[in-house]
């Protein structure tokens, strides 16, 4: 074999070997998109306004309680989340210097405006953005925890969007999207609160003792009222203290368990510092009810029978699965803000499976048709093109595996189109060779001219398609991106195989034969 030909063969073998190597084993190396594997694609928006409001609420409560610790009694607080500030009533006889000192010490993120008997504390510049950013980051972390605990393999959880307040979640293989969506979206903000009044069947009778308005340190909350069999028969109204005894943040762990009658519940353990606080509270409040509040809903309001320190139980007529899920989200932590779904795409496993079967069937039948045609029309040269086509497909799949590209249903369509486009290059060359043969050129020179003349055309034709594919990749999302990827790689591969591989095959065939009279084309 001539040296030149040998080099070409080595290059081809090396490329094919590299493609095979990166492709093997295909079941592990080719990533399937959600539309083929089945799964859920979600885009959530973090309502960061919630986090702003929560921070202001929390700060207002903190200020009142810090002041109380130093013997300073403050008036009512009011939060204005729109302008990122809260105000607090400062009675005329207040120790203003003491209050100033507390604010200076514990509220460095706030600017204070002192106006008579009402002081207002507003975020310093940039604090607002910082809190929003933290809320998204905490949300991302919490969702990560929850998905991890739920047990989804290879999830994708990313922050995105211009404002950076969106979270993209992709969960392959999920077969019960409703349950997963519930688990992800639950805020899971758990609070234990002192019950000041209630339960009452309605608001007026609850507030009868307070002249119709809840006290300044209390608020009205409601929960389901259940009958003997656990069925919901109405709402119960409570007045609970605004400040919580402990919250979900104080939990060390939570797990599903059951009571002595076999009813599922959730058991939790507290971190040591919270255990002390909880122990102190329960020992001094034996015989009084305490509300367990989840996301603003009173789950139950049991009466404290003894001192509770480091562990407890949450009951609420749960099914096994509800108890399991509640334990899971309590372990994973609360979301710092509510989340809103902006986009959902669920592909059930059977639809994905179906798409794969049909996609493969379409690809194979297309491939067989094209190959048969090439064989019939161009005979041995058609065989040459078919070898090039097979190598093309191996390179295409190998490159996809190498780049970690995802195969989607439109991606399979891209592979199928590549089959059509790939033979186009061969057709251009073969038609040219035939023309050259017709005008009486020798086989060698016809092949020579055929390839060199067709090359420019092949390049022009493929580059235009590549331009479309690249912009599709740039602006496409999900499955469409998969299409752009297979199409782009396919274009490169087909130029290589049609121009280089087919040419080499001719070279091998013609090598060692001095005078070639005929070409099977």
């Amino acid at each position, binding site marked *: 074999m001539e040296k030149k030909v040998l080099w070409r063969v080595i290059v081809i073998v090396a490329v094919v070997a590299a493609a095979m190597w990166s492709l093997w084993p295909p079941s592990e190396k080719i990533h399937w998109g959600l539309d083929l594997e089945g799964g859920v694609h979600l885009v959530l928006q973090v309502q960061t306004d919630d986090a702003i409001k929560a921070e202001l609420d929390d700060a207002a409560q903190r200020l009142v309680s810090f002041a109380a610790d130093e013997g300073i009694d403050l008036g009512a607080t009011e939060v204005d989340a729109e302008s990122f500030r809260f105000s607090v009533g400062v009675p005329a006889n207040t120790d203003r210097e003491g209050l100033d000192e507390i604010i200076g010490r514990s509220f460095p993120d706030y600017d204070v405006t002192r106006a008579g008997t009402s002081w207002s504390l507003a975020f310093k510049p940039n604090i607002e953005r910082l809190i929003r950013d933290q809320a998204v980051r905490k949300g991302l972390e919490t969702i990560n925890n929850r998905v991890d605990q739920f047990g989804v393999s290879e999830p994708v959880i990313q922050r995105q969007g211009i404002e950076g307040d969106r979270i993209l979640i992709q969960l392959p293989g*999920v077969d019960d999207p409703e349950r997963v969506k519930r688990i992800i979206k639950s805020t899971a903000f758990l609070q234990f609160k002192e019950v000041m009044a209630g339960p009452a069947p309605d608001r007026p009778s609850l507030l009868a003792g307070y002249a119709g308005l809840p006290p300044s340190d209390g608020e009205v909350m409601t929960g389901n009222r259940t009958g003997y069999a656990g069925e919901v028969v109405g709402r119960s109204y409570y007045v609970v203290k605004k400040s919580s005894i402990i919250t979900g943040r104080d939990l060390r762990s939570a797990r599903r368990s059951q009571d002595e009658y076999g009813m599922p519940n959730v058991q939790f353990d507290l971190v040591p510092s919270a255990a002390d606080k909880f122990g102190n509270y329960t020992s001094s409040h034996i015989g009084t009810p305490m509300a367990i509040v989840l996301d603003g809903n009173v789950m139950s309001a049991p009466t404290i029978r003894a001192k509770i320190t480091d562990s407890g139980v949450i009951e609420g007529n749960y099914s*096994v699965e509800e108890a399991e899920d509640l334990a899971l989200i309590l372990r994973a932590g609360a979301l710092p803000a509510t989340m809103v779904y902006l986009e959902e795409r669920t592909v059930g496993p059977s639809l994905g499976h179906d*798409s794969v079967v049909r996609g493969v069937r379409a690809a194979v039948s297309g491939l067989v048709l094209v190959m048969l045609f090439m064989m019939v029309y161009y005979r041995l040269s058609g065989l040459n093109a078919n070898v090039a086509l097979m190598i093309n497909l191996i390179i295409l799949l190998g490159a996809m595996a190498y780049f970690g590209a995802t195969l989607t249903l439109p991606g399979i369509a891209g592979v199928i189109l590549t089959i059509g486009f790939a033979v186009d290059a061969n057709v*251009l060359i073969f*038609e040219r060779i035939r023309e050259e043969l017709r005008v009486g050129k020798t086989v060698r020179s016809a092949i020579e001219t055929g390839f060199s003349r067709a090359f420019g055309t092949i390049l022009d034709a493929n580059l*235009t398609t590549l331009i479309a594919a690249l*912009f599709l990749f740039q602006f496409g999302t999900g499955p469409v991106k998969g299409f752009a990827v297979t199409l782009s790689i396919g274009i490169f591969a087909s130029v290589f195989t049609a121009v280089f591989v087919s040419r080499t095959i001719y070279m091998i065939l013609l090598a060692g034969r001095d005078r070639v009279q005929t070409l099977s084309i």
Partner: protein
Amino acid sequence: MRIIGDTNIPFLSYRKIALSLSLLVILSGLAYQFLGHGLNLGIDFVGGTQVTIKFRGEPDLGLLRKSMTDLDVGTPLLQRFDEPEKHEILIRVENPEGEEGDFTGPIIELLRRDLNGGIGDAFDLNTRGAQSLTLLLGVEDPDATGLDDEGAAEHYGPIAEAVLGFRKENGIFTSLDQLDTIEGVSENVIAFIKERADLGEFALLGAESVGPSVGEDLKEKAQLAIVFSLIGMLAYIWLRFQLPFGVGAVAALFHDVLITLTALAVTGREINLPTVAALLALVGYSVNDSVVVFDRVRENLKLHRGEDLEQLMNTSINQTLSRTFITSGTTLMVVLSLYFFGGDVINTFAFVLLVGVIVGTYSSIFVASPVALGMHRMLASYRDKKRLKGRKRR
């Protein structure tokens, strides 16, 4: 073998008829799009929710429609998905104006309420997931393993996967007896599932919901993709060819896209992201086809200087005619396999390419070159006039 021999068809002589015909089709298409129902934009671009459901038996469309009225969001669109004997229905509803949120959840809740009332608290093998089944089996322990929660999950996890694997293959359980066909699951477990589980009337095949802000984003991205690829291709053609050819290729491109859009409008097919991807692939194909002819014209221009452009173009088209047909043929072979075997999800995608390839082949012969020729003659006469004027002044 040769399908098309040496031809010498004066294609460009038919240019007036061909261009008039194309113009007529395009104009009536545009009129149809603007005066009629227009393009059927899918939820990717207008937002909305779409749920595909498989039923155990023949679905009761009246009941479904009634069920969906509780959503209060205008008339839901119900249509068959795939072959009728598969009992698959696609439900599409608009989302409440300007609102974001989970809109697939409520649809499924309504379907549960109205269709699955009969199964009560039983475990629904057609909608629940493997993790839930694992939990149920773990708690009740029909194999009497005596394992703790974690061990039970390990033991029953693969069993639950195997049981619900049936749904993955077949889409839905139609009878509890189908449980007997599942291998690798103990009789106790099967007996337990038969006792505690039941079959809901439907299974969820897929669900899509796009809120207004994502819809806006997608629309913007699709527009950018289209605009930039058009600019990219124009720039390329402009660099590689003279102006008249660029104009010809672009005319053919718009011709193909406009006619394909008309076909989409007439058939009422939904336009979603993959449809746009197919349109762009078609744009690539269309330009590709024109470029092959023009490359030949350029080559012939060098060989036969001074010959009439119309004659040259005719020769070039005839010379490349065989290639044009064979490539269209092989591309049609793959596109047809995609159209017939690819399934409903990809059908519109295949349809765009199918129409596009046929129209694209026509336009590379009857639109691209005639327009290029016309442009060339216009430029030539413009130059002549200028030269004449210059002479007069002198």
